[in-house]
């Protein structure tokens, strides 16, 4: 019996092991492939470095900017704007989302304005915000908050409205207070959808900060891109863009981790 059991298990563990290796190496392999394709593209196209730099040139520029501290300094500046803007935007959107989800009349009054505000491109509003609030960090934080606001708000409303009425009635029948309903029913039920909005918001916040820095700034990755473009240092533009991508990915996967931690009860079984 034991022998049979072992023989049956062997192929399954081999498949699992292969799948694990596959997962571990998939990302590095795709990255290396992308770099090779990029290099080949530059070589075949015979692009000058100020039009399309090769990966090696971008790498060299990365090392220089890390060495002189300019990349870290500007990255930290943008990161602070993004995080503060994200927190501010999420806080306001969640609070307002709760009100809208609870009150149809408030939703009817505010919805047209909220939707209309989304029709205005942030690029058009950014110069006005900088004019009104100055060229410091605050205007960039505000732009981040505005861009984060809508997806988080919508997902908060949808999440709270997705709570089944039967469960709400059940809680009420158990004499649960409003606070208990909120903590033990509404938050857990709305969290998956809310975190979906947060994923989008986290990546959008990076765009918001860059839009603000493009319009007027003397620090940050947006400024670095603007200045490098003015100096025809295209390799540095690539370095700054890739740092932005890394920042957006880090924020996105931080939310994914948060999801895993807070929604462990709701995770699909891994086959």
């Amino acid at each position: 019996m034991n022998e049979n059991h072992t023989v049956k298990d062997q192929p399954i563990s081999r498949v699992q092991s292969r799948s694990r290796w596959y997962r571990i190496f998939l990302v590095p392999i795709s990255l290396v492939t992308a770099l090779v394709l990029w290099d080949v593209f530059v070589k075949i196209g015979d692009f000058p470095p100020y039009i399309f730099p090769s990966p090696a040139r971008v790498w060299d520029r990365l090392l220089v900017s890390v060495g002189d501290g300019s990349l870290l300094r500007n990255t930290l500046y943008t990161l602070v704007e993004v995080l503060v803007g994200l927190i501010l935007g999420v806080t306001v959107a969640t609070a307002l989302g709760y009100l809208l989800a609870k009150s149809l009349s408030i939703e009817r009054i505010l919805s047209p304005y909220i939707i209309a505000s989304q029709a205005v491109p942030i690029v058009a509003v950014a110069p006005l915000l900088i004019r009104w609030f100055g060229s410091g960090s605050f205007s960039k934080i505000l732009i981040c908050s505005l861009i984060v606001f809508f997806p988080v708000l919508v997902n908060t409303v949808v999440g709270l409205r997705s709570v089944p009425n039967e469960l709400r009635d059940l809680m009420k029948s158990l004499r649960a207070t409003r606070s208990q309903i909120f903590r033990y029913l509404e938050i857990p039920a709305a969290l998956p959808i809310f975190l979906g909005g947060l994923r989008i918001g986290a990546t959008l916040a990076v765009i918001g900060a860059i839009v603000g820095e493009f319009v007027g700034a003397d620090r940050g990755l947006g400024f670095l891109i603007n200045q490098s473009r003015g100096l025809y240092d295209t390799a540095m533009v690539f370095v700054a863009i890739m740092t932005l991508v890394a920042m957006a990915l880090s924020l996105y996967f931080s939310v994914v981790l948060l999801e895993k931690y807070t929604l462990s009860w709701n995770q699909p079984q891994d086959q």
Partner: protein
Amino acid sequence: MDRRKNILLIILFLLILLAACRPVQSQIPTVDIPKVHIRLPMGYIPSVQYAPFYVAHSRGYFEQAGIDLEFDYQLETDGVALVGADDLQFALVSGEQVLLARNQGLPVVYVFAWWQDYPVAVASFTDQDILEPADLAGKKIGLPGLFGANYVGLRALLDFAGLSELDVQLDSIGFTQVDALIAGLDDSVAIYANNEPIQLKSQGYSVDVIRVADYVDLASNGLLTNEITIKENPELVERMVGAILKGLADTMADPDAAFEICKKYIEVWDQENEALYKDILLATMEYWKSDQPGISQPQTWENMQEVLLGMGWLAEPLDLDQAYTNRFVPGN
């Protein structure tokens, strides 16, 4: 015999008359020149500041030179990069862009000095009493950002006064200098002397202007091409320069006619601001005045290089002879 002589004389006279009646344009050798489509990055929005180009286009000078010109109002730096890559043959650029581009290996060459003076200036309200570069010490100065001609011009003024960036407060505000000054957000702003001060004065404000050109001679706006075009198609460069020179001469000779022509090329033309536009054109024309239109002065390039070296934007001096040439300006 006399009668035959008279008939011959009459025929000769008629032939001369007929030849004289031929249209003037046909005297210009356009037939042999193959027409080339040129997309010209202008570096700014449609404006009366491009009057010589509009005049040359409207009066057919580009066409006569075998050039089918298309105005392209894209960013200056993008235009320079495209010329460097030989995707485009020409662009209108500010002097510092030429050296910055060559510093990164772009094979670009400045071939026509359109503006004789660097147009950047620092403007402030008269109550601030900012009258010369040294008065900028301790002041908050608004500028679009730490890049481009505004920043270079401001740095040149600070250098002249023996000031550094630490002696002033630079405020990167995007292209909102006029509003920032009116709102009191900045003590002074880096602007183009031929534009924003005129706007401010038209709104009733009293402003003092410190012109960079009054303190340092810097290479200013002009026509850029690349080494490939110069090598393979020098006649095209000559024809382009020739057409621009004609447009410039016509504009300087008759600003009113040039102004009327501008209206056809500027889509968003506000009738109420026509007097302002006219003032901007007249102020800008002051920057084009020259005994030798189109000629680059070597000292202006030396000075520009000095400023850029001081800013750290150039690591070492460039070969300036590669950066500009006067050989395409007629008479050189």
